[in-house]
């Protein structure tokens, strides 16, 4: 076959996208870059700050080191309190979110109204950040860990409730049908047909949220809701960086350990 014949038989141009598709894609890219650039510009960022940023950072690091390890003894109590806030907050969440999830799952909720109420509570809970909840609860209960526990719980209800509700909606309907066929009551169907299928996910989600809550609890003190945040906030405001570094190291340790615990537990139950 000669080259000429070849060219006649087979096209020698192939494009993945038509020119129009390509154009549309580039217009999208341009839009994204434009929006990002426009946002940055509007923020009025004083770029000259960056000129000596490396000096600032070096200065900060040099102030942090060496950490004042003698301070570690004082850190212990607030650190334990932080863990307590996360754990008790998660426990409260568990008690509230578990029944709420059944209300918010389409296949277990009694009627459309209850479903809507369930979803509404979950969405409200999730839309407000833990720290913002803490602001509110500090105003109500006064400064201290009780506000923190409630803040943690209020934010976590939406998270856990949503995941558990999704798990309930995705269960295998076969066993449920089989239990219904035995003439079991609604509650019995939930107990025998539904619950065993979602329990691993319930436990997994709880442990996962506990691990997130440990992180969240470290900053609740910034608004007065207890934990190590109170001490961290005052040390930062006093520019006591060598104390700050001790606390950051402590937080790093606790968070890494809790993440490890949570990952291990979740791997074993699912």
């Amino acid at each position: 076959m000669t080259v000429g014949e070849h060219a006649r038989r087979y096209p020698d141009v192939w494009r993945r996208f038509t020119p129009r598709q390509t154009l549309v894609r580039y217009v999208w890219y341009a839009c994204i870059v434009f929006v990002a650039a426009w946002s940055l510009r509007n923020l009025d960022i004083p770029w000259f700050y960056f000129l000596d940023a490396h000096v600032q950072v070096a200065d900060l690091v040099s102030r942090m080191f060496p950490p004042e390890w003698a301070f570690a003894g004082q850190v212990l109590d607030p650190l334990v309190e932080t863990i307590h806030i996360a754990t008790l907050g998660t426990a409260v969440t568990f008690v509230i979110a578990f029944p709420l999830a059944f209300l918010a799952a389409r296949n277990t909720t009694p009627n459309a109204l209850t479903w809507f109420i369930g979803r509404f509570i979950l969405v409200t809970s999730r839309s407000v950040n833990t720290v913002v909840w803490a602001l509110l609860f500090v105003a109500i209960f006064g400064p201290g860990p009780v506000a923190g526990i409630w803040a943690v719980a209020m934010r976590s209800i939406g998270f856990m409730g949503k995941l558990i509700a999704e798990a309930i909606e995705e269960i295998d309907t076969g066993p449920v049908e089989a239990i219904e066929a035995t003439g079991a009551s609604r509650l019995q169907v939930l107990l025998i047909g539904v619950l065993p299928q979602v329990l691993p996910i319930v436990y997994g989600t709880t442990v996962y949220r506990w691990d997130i809550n440990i992180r969240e609890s470290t900053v609740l003190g910034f608004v007065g809701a207890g934990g190590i945040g109170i001490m961290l906030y005052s040390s930062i405001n006093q520019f006591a960086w060598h104390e700050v570094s001790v606390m950051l190291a402590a937080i790093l340790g606790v968070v890494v350990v809790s993440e490890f615990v949570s990952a291990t537990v979740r791997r074993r139950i699912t």
Partner: protein
Amino acid sequence: MSAPATWRPPSLVPNPLYRYGLMALAGGYVLWSVGSLEVDWNRVAQGFPRAGGILGRMFPPDFSRWELLLRGVTESVEMALAASFVGMIVAVPLGLCAAVNLAPMPVYLLARSVIVFTRTFHEVIVAIVFVKVFGFGPLAGVLTLIVASVSFIAKMVAEDIENMQPGQVEAIRATGASFPKVLIYAITPQILPRYLGVSIYRLDANVRHSTVVGIVGAGGIGQTLSASFSRYDYDFSLAILLTIVALVFAGEFFSNWVRGRLR
């Protein structure tokens, strides 16, 4: 021999000693933790009537200072957009370095420790450090969100690369392609959809987080909210809260819409 007359289901923890031990441990923990919390129970008891008072003062929400509100919201959204964009770009090289099947061991370990380190600290802690270094204002907020976005997206990219199908990469390598070509031809097609999805999700998360970094003075609507709380302007606080909820909703809706279209 007669069949046993009773049957109990096997317990989650078979050994009774362990089982009761665990229960006792859990009970003990609750007692210890609740007991060790330094709580002014009188103050807490006052809380319930106070909650009624605060709620009463929250209604009706006060939208009269809408200009202030709008400025805060705009700043939050701008912070989220800028941070997501920068984060999305910076996360790619970091993510490549943090994939165990691509990067040499020392690079991998370094990249992974950067990710672990930045992920550990809550945005608010990062924000306050930036506020101390760069002063009050949105710059600290943007930097905080950038740090959070980079470490989040990079972690996802690295995990995707580690989970991709090695066969496709092997086949492209077998054609004699160099590493950059393998990257664009075998790796990119496998991770691109998830990468875009995660980036969009991060935009949505950044909108949510941009509402809190302001509490320590790093700009955005959070700053306005924090100020209104400290001035006991609860009706304005509720207006801000409702706006935040609406904003988060819009962000989540947008994010779901885009991710649904990405396939």
